């Protein structure tokens, strides 16, 4: 009930001696309601307010029209109100207020748009706790006459940075219809016409519930706010939820916040190490370049960074990962159900996405560690249109090398890496967004003894996202990827014979993917990819061109085109039963000599929920792969040779069948997962005994094709809310290989199944974070695994003047079991929003128990030894400064 207490004057006064006419407005002893009404009518301002019930202040304002608005606000401020503006809207809120509902006037002001993101963002910035239950969002016109289901789509963004939120679950709380936001934060969900309750939940985000009145297809953009621990209101964690909604099996999603809390050898958040802490992911040792998923080899993982392929995801022989943690937003690993839109590798897809950059203000961070430092900067280039993100890392490890003894082989050596990420996101309009990414990295090892190594990654791509209509959207990207490696062997500075070997892979790609909401229960995805490869397996050149005897020659470059067509459908048969199916027609045209391979691949998975918190899933996939890494070392090395399928090297193919049981308890905070799989592969390449992999023009003759067999069970319990978060997993898995052809006595292990180098049957992993206060947390990381198989000699013999080792069967012996515990203390900045910089510290110890884990076991004559990479505890300190 509002009423005028006083008369409102409007008087026109002509100022004597003034050249300018000035209209003076005046109000006397008006209440807040009246003042706002005046301001709205006189100034056409969007003004919203919430009146403190206990507040009985009245206001008197007198000022020229030009200055009246400010004078009115000053008067309000005097009485303890806060006046803020957001966009074109102004908000008048009492500083002491805690809002439990939206300003009531907001809904009466004729603001028909369902886009409340501005208001929500504003309110969130005021640290108000807002619930929207009293607001009903109307989607579409009430007279549309539509029946059945309508599509609601939109973007989910972070409230403070305006960045898209990836992997947020969006679900109809009544019907169970469910979707997840994509890399641009986009979602689309089919809702029955009428009243709906839409839930949104994401990792470390406060759950949001919105009342919707759906008339027709429409748009609803939502902002969400990072969860503050004391305000835990989450009912169902995003991850647990996706288990019970999504039909896909074997998907792991980790947000960078979690990654940054996992202790690593030098304290920097490491994406690859985080992936290795998941069940079903293994590596051959602590300094290895790459990882093995469910018994697959390292080259069977497709590593995508903003759609570009990363061929070497590590720096410094696997001690650091190639991804700067400051610019990464989320990592998704597909261990079993690989979407039909992705392909080209038979084991897994690791999809790493960088952030878009803060849309509201310039922000950044600086990180300083013992061996590396990094920075990043992000912000708007054009307000609300264009954002940028740039980041870089470099090492200063050379000082460590200088500390080594003068006469050691390493004195005077240099080992370093750097990388740069840059991206620009431009919003053309509400329906179209363009993004450009760039990534560059280089590694160099230059020891005074031979040889020196360099390798580099370059990726550049452009992506266009378009919402064509409420049912159809399109994502298209095009880009270029390059991986190059160089080996320099001076042979003791020998001017005549010193040589260098270069290899590289260049690829250009074009990917198009349409998402179409076909009929209410179906979500269709279709599209096409094409990759053009230009691969140089090796080029030799003299290191000292002046006096050299070294021939400049190269192996034939390999060119190929890899087209693929795919279509997949997600079908919600009943709210409890979901099916997903897809076909990918994967082609490969090898050029010079030309040979075409065509492999249809099938993706099938289904989910049935017995209860809201208890589901089972099953899946079956077939995959094919046309690029192969030829390595005869147990750990992949940067100069290992990549090889395309040719007329002589057939594509690798494989299938995987998997099943899982998912149970969520304790109000959604604890999630039990049990998954099992069985997997077979064909034409996986192994090498013949004594094969030369570097600069070998007849490499195909030195290779053998193998059958692969892998199976396993993975159990995980995960807690994602509360003071204690993290997961515990156990897996039992085997990975075996067998030569496809019988080559008589030369057949590897006599043609029997033999252990793959990464076959480590038992594995226990624990990742935990305990938050004592908002600022202070402790992280632990524990890993136990059966020792990996190695080949040990059966005896010795004298030959060529020395004692030599004789070997028999491959990979029959196991190195000792692996155990490691890491601890870290994280001190995060306080929640002082006004402070310009936020400092966080991580202090930790890697390998706390100082266990001497064997990386390898080897013999020197009759003496046996083990090599331990991190044999002692490694303490570290990392400082992060955010601004």
């Amino acid at each position, binding site marked *: 009930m509002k009423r005028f207490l006083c008369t409102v004057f409007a008087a026109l006064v002509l100022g004597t001696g003034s050249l300018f006419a000035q209209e003076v407005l005046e109000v006397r002893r008006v209440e807040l309601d009246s003042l706002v009404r005046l301001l709205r009518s006189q100034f056409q301002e969007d003004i919203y307010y919430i009146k403190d019930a206990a507040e009985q202040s009245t206001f008197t304002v007198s000022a020229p029209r030009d200055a009246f608005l400010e004078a009115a606000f000053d008067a309000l401020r005097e009485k303890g109100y806060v006046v803020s503006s957001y966009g074109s809207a102004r908000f008048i809120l009492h500083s002491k207020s805690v809002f439990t509902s939206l300003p009531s006037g907001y809904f009466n002001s004729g603001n028909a748009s369902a886009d409340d993101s501005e208001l929500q963002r504003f309110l969130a910035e005021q640290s108000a706790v807002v619930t929207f239950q009293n607001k009903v969002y109307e989607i579409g016109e009430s007279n549309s006459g539509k029946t059945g289901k309508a599509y609601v789509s939109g973007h989910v963004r972070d409230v403070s940075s305006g960045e898209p939120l990836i992997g947020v679950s969006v679900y109809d709380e009544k019907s169970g219809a469910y979707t997840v936001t994509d890399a641009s934060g986009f979602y689309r969900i089919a809702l029955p016409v009428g009243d709906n309750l839409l839930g949104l939940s994401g990792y470390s985000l406060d759950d949001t519930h919105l009342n919707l009145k759906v008339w027709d297809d429409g748009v609803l953009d939502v902002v969400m706010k990072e969860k503050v621990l004391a305000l835990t209101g989450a009912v169902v964690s995003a991850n647990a939820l996706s288990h019970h909604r999504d039909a896909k099996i074997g998907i792991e999603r980790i947000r960078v916040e979690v990654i940054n809390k996992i202790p690593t050898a030098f304290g920097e958040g490491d994406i690859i190490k985080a992936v290795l802490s998941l069940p079903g992911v293994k590596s051959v040792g602590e300094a290895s370049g790459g990882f093995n998923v469910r018994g697959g080899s390292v080259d069977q993982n497709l590593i995508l960074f903003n759609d570009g392929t990363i061929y070497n995801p590590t720096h410094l*022989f696997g001690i650091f990962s190639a991804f700067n943690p400051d610019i990464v937003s989320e990592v998704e690993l597909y261990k079993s159900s690989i979407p039909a839109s992705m392909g080209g590798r038979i084991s897994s897809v690791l999809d790493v996405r960088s952030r878009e950059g803060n849309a509201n203000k310039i922000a950044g961070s600086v990180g300083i560690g013992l061996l590396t430092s990094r920075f990043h900067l992000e912000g708007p280039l054009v307000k609300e249109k264009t954002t940028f993100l740039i980041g870089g890392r470099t090492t200063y490890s050379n000082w460590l090398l200088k500390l080594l003894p003068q006469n050691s082989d390493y004195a005077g050596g240099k080992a370093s890496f750097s990388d740069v990420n840059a991206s620009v996101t431009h919003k053309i309009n509400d329906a179209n967004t363009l993004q450009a990414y760039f990534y560059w990295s280089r590694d160099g090892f230059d020891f005074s003894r031979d040889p020196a190594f360099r390798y580099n990654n370059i990726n550049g791509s452009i992506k266009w996202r378009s919402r064509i209509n409420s049912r159809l959207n399109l994502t298209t990207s095009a880009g270029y990827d390059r991986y190059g490696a160089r080996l320099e*062997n001076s042979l003791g500075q020998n001017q005549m014979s010193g040589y260098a070997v270069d290899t590289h892979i260049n690829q250009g790609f074009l990917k198009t993917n349409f998402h179409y909401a076909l009929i209410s229960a179906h979500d269709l995805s279709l599209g096409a990819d094409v990759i053009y490869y230009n691969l140089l397996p090796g080029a030799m050149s003299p290191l000292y061109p002046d006096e050299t*005897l070294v021939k400049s020659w190269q192996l034939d470059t390999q060119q190929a085109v890899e087209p693929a067509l795919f279509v997949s459908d997600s079908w919600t048969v009943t709210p409890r039963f979901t099916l997903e199916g897809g076909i990918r027609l994967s082609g490969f045209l090898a050029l010079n000599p030309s040979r075409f391979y065509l492999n249809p691949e099938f993706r099938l998975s289904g989910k049935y929920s017995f209860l809201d918190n208890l589901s089972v899933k099953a899946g079956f996939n077939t995959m094919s792969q046309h690029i192969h890494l030829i390595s005869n070392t147990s750990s992949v090395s940067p100069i290992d040779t990549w090889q395309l399928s040719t007329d002589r090297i057939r594509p690798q193919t494989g299938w995987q069948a998997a099943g899982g049981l998912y149970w969520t308890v304790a109000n959604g905070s604890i999630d039990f997962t049990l998954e099992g799989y069985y997997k077979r592969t064909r034409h996986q390449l192994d090498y013949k005994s004594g094969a030369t992999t570097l600069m070998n023009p007849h490499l195909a003759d030195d290779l053998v094709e193998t059958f692969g067999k892998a199976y396993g069970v993975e159990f995980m319990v995960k807690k994602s809310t509360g003071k204690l978060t993290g997961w515990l997993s156990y897996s039992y898995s085997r990975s075996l290989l067998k030569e496809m052809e019988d080559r008589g006595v030369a057949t590897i292990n006599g043609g029997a199944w033999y252990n793959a180098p990464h076959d480590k049957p038992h594995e226990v992993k624990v990742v935990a974070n305990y938050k004592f206060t908002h600022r202070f947390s402790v992280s632990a990381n524990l890993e136990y695994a059966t020792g990996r198989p190695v080949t040990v000699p059966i005896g010795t013999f*004298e030959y060529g003047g020395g004692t030599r080792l004789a*070997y028999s069967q491959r990979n029959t012996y196991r190195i000792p079991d692996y155990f490691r515990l890491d601890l870290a203390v994280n001190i995060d900045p306080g929640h002082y929003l006004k402070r310009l910089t936020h400092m966080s510290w991580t202090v930790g110890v890697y390998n706390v128990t100082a266990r001497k884990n064997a990386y*390898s076991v080897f013999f020197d004559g009759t003496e046996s030894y083990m090599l331990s990479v991190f044999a*002692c505890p490694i303490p570290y300190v990392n400082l992060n400064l955010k601004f």
Partner: protein
Amino acid sequence: MSAKIAFRLAAYSAAALLMAACIYPYTVDIRKGDEYPLVVEGDLHIGGTSVVKLSHVRPFDTAEYEDIAVFAQGYIEGEDGKRVQGVDADVDTYLSSSSYYDYSTSLVFDTSKLPENQRYRLHLDTFTAEGSLNNQFESDWIMPCPAPTIDALTYSKNDHFKELWVGLSMHCHGSHYFRWTFDETWEYHSDIQSYIEYVPRSWNEYEMKETGGYYQHIMPTYYYCWKSASSSQINIFTTKNQTEDRFEELAFHTIPLSDKRLQVMYRINVQLEAMSEDAYNYWYNMQQNSEGQGSIFSPVPSEMASNVHCISDPSVQVMGYLNAAVPTSAVMFYNNEDEGFYRQGPLSERRDSTISAYDISLADQMFSTGFLPYMEIYTMGPTPSDYTWNYATCIDCRKQGGTKTRPEGWPSGHI
């Protein structure tokens, strides 16, 4: 140096970067193999004498290997059908490199009159200890490789590593693959030169307590010694990626400047031969298997097939690869008097003890606890009143493994 070996170094370096990577002794409990393959080592030296050594792979539990001694006979056969029968010889006469007592058998073939322009193969029959025929082996046909020419053996001082680098220069017509071995001999001296020695009392004299035990002047002294060693690592190189089949000053051997080998005079004798591509690959793989292990990027060890096959039982494994070649050799000396590269390392610990010339009991005691006299002290009269003693390791060069036997043709005048 091979790329993989080189890579191993870099990987070690990366590990050293962490300063935490370490190598520890570790006992591997190896299950016993079912069989221990026959090892056939040797090259057919066309135009010279060929030695083929036969042994077995020795299990780590060496108590077993007595059972697998080799009893064999064989012949070398040319494409022209002519055969040269092997003569059983004591291995130590021909191959002194093995420091193990072993049960190997060597067959010596007089291949000096065989023509180089045809292929050869080796035939072997092995027998059980009781003398009955066990297995028959035959090699593939092997074409002799041409003789390379050693152009030079050189040395240079590397100041960065404080090492002497020994380089080989050679050329060849008709082969791209080379292997060489070397043996080295050096003259060095002890820290203290002593012209006197003490002759202790014999047991009888000791009993009598009155006689025996005396000092005498000696010449030559135990100051200069000679010592020798053979290469144990595999030295191979290929020119297949070069425009010419030659290389110059390829560093293959390094000696720290403080090593005793450079103290007085050093000699290296290199034997070089060309080989087939397959033989090179076999040696390369063996190098990987035995020398390239233990690092992060070590190749997974595996065995290559030999070119000697068991024809009586194809499942019997054979190790080793026969090559046919015409070897060539060269010698190089390093004289520290001319170059002065040697850097004196830390001297052995010294402890001077001066005792009375008449205290024979004490002298005996000193002698038996590893001391030797090196200095006479005259206080009065024409005979020494005291002798100063020191550790034998500082005085007697033989205590460091050398001998007083001067190698044949050794140019220095020291005795």
